[in-house]
């Protein structure tokens, strides 16, 4: 089956193209079917291939498929090739699996929307690009996917194009990530120039052979790639676009801005871990960025009133965990958390979507309340998702993955311990902010009359994801609880092994922190509460540390100012001056032609005197 690997990204692409060409002509039902089925088929294919891969792994656990020779010029060659190894396998499964569920959800969620077909066209396009990103065997194809998902994200954030604010958010997302992408692009140039290949595996191998650990060039390359990663994954300092991106339809937020695209940075670093291992400084930076982001986002999430923005900050925070894991070398933990996060965060977004679709897209949690009884499906899904997010010990997938990260950090020396502390604080904050949302939304007073039943296309994904959010963690269980290592075994060929941690202290402390957070949330928000007062501190965290403010002042406004001031191109005025001067000279010289014969004679005489003088005297 695995020779059909190329079909996995192609199927959604075909769906996308079909939908684009048929835009305006397909019925809503047909469009939804095409959209969901193309991803569904890709998912089935992906799982089939995965089954084949697991039962009968190829040599070296890598399956390479070259589709065509893309370019071969001046010593640089790139194929359009796919590479299936455990890492991309996991990613592929998450993308197609979660992707399909979200598509299914969206077919019902988006019903009646103007541009229904366009929505699925773009969503399919996104899935295709994301699959290309993870399956690419070379940097160029990876970058193509990388930009492709950016495009998909842009298109979908701005899906409701009539509102200029959506357009602004979409452009912000694209441009801010593009800044990171440019760093990645430069990294590509650096790697290609110095390692002579665009193939990722070859490049990593060359790098390990030719660059010593800590060499400046390796560090630079790693930092450039990191630039790309922080952009896509909304980490400091390029995190500002993510909360704004929530103006897109909720399935989009679930798929792109929670489950898949934003984890591309994690994938990239994992994919190029060999390079990061050569650059300890860069790796440490990854961890620090992760730690800082998870704290910042955690505090910010607490100061949000919009349910999707809470989830957005939580996404940022959770990806911070993944970065932290990468930073401390807990590679499989990062991947593990990526996977479980995809489950529970998709679940959270979808259930949030399920709620808001019954509330005329009202997203302010203080305008909700008491929804537990009205919308039980959404309630239970959201609750399960929240529990997983808060890493409720033992019973949630989130617990196991977060625990893996924190133990990894614990084992990581002094810097690891510091990061571990950040992680623990973060775990506390996570419990606090998510259960704040849970209590405010589902308990307390009811506002207005809400009702409605969900169709199977909404309930099924919620159910499946709920199950995954609970049980998904059982593929990797720490030694204390039974020592399951399915995932790390799978990833062993491609990722370096993580140190085993048998110490139970970090585990206990982290669990305690999470529980404490939940308890605190219950304490504060069990009863109906007022909208929080806008104190300066609240505003600071509401604005997520004021990065937007800062960037606006330092970058955006100066550029806009320059563009506005110079919209007539001052260089042109230079030429205008020349033209003006010529005309002015013309006007002056023209006055000599006053028509008076005596004046003309004088001219003649002056000329004569001068010419004779030149001839005789010189």
């Amino acid at each position: 089956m695995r020779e059909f690997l190329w079909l996995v990204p192609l199927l959604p692409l075909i769906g996308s193209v079909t939908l684009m060409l048929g835009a305006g002509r397909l019925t809503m039902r047909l469009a939804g079917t095409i959209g969901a089925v193309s991803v569904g088929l890709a998912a089935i294919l992906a799982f089939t291939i995965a089954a084949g891969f697991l039962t009968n792994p190829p040599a070296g656990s890598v399956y390479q498929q070259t589709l065509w020779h893309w370019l071969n010029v001046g010593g640089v060659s790139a194929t359009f090739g796919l590479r299936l190894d455990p890492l991309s396998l996991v990613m592929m499964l998450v993308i197609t699996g979660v992707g399909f569920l979200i598509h299914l959800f969206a077919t019902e969620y988006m019903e009646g929307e103007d541009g229904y077909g366009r929505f699925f066209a773009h969503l399919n396009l996104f899935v295709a690009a994301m699959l290309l990103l993870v399956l690419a065997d070379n940097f160029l194809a990876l970058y193509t996917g990388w930009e492709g998902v950016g495009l998909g994200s842009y298109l979908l954030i701005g899906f409701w194009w009539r509102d200029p604010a959506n357009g602004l958010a979409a452009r912000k997302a694209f441009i801010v990530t593009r800044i990171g992408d440019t760093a990645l692009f430069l990294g590509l140039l650096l790697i290609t120039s110095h390692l002579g290949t665009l193939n990722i595996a070859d490049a990593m191998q060359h790098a390990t052979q030719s660059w010593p650990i800590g060499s400046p060039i390796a560090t630079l390359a790693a930092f450039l790639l990191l630039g790309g990663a922080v952009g896509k994954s909304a980490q400091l300092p390029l995190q500002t676009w993510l909360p704004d991106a929530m103006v897109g339809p909720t399935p989009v937020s679930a798929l792109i801005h929670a489950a898949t695209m934003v984890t591309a940075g994690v994938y990239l670093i994992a994919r190029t871990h060999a390079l990061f291992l050569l650059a300890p400084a860069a790796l440490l930076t990854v961890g620090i960025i992760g730690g800082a982001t998870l704290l910042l986002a955690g505090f910010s999430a607490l100061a949000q009133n919009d349910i999707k923005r809470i989830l957005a900050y939580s996404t940022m925070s959770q990806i911070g965990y993944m970065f932290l894991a990468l930073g401390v070398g807990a590679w499989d933990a990062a991947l593990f958390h990526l996977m479980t996060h995809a489950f529970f965060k998709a679940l959270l977004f979808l259930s949030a979507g399920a709620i808001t679709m019954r509330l005329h897209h009202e997203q302010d949690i203080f305008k909700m309340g008491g929804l537990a009884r009205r919308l039980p499906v959404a309630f239970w899904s959201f609750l399960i998702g929240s529990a997983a997010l808060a890493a409720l010990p033992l019973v949630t997938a989130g617990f196991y993955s977060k625990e893996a990260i924190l133990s990894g950090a614990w084992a990581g020396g002094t810097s690891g311990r510091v990061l571990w502390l950040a992680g623990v604080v973060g775990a506390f904050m996570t419990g606090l902010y998510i259960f704040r949302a849970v209590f405010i939304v589902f308990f307390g007073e009811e506002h207005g009359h809400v009702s409605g039943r969900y169709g199977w296309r909404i309930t099924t994904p919620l159910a499946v994801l709920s199950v995954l959010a609970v049980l998904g963690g059982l593929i990797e269980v720490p030694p204390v609880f039974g020592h399951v290592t399915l995932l790390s075994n799978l990833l062993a060929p491609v990722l370096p092994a993580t140190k085993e941690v048998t110490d139970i202290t970090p585990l206990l402390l982290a669990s305690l922190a999470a529980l404490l957070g939940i308890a605190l949330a219950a304490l504060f928000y069990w009863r109906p509460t007022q909208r929080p007062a806008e104190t300066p501190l609240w505003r600071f965290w509401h604005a997520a540390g004021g990065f937007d403010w800062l960037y606006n002042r330092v970058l955006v406004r100066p550029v806009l100012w320059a563009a506005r001031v110079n919209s007539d191109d001052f260089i042109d005025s230079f030429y205008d001056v020349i033209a003006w001067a010529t005309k002015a000279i013309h006007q002056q010289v023209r006055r000599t032609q006053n028509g008076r014969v005596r004046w003309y004679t004088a001219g003649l005489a002056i000329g004569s005197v001068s010419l004779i003088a030149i001839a005789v005297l010189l």
Partner: protein
Amino acid sequence: MANVPLDQGLLLAAILFALGLTGVLVRRNLLFMLMSLEVMLNAAGIAFIVAGARWAAPDGQIMFIFVLTFAAAEVSVGLALILLIHRQNPMLDADAGDRLRG
């Protein structure tokens, strides 16, 4: 006729030439300008005679004759033009004739 003052002759021609030029530049009446022009041409003629005298050759005088021819032709046409102008411009004011300009 020994000791012909050639240098002084040329000097005379030059002075007359300059005086003629002054006349053309200063006078506003076209008739006077024409007269001054004649002075300039005559000065050139004197120069030819002086030059001819230096080489004791007839060429100088022949050129003088041609200058004379030209001067006569010029005056005849010039006076005809002045007649024509007189109708629009009875004072023959040279400065008034600036319809063509710019």
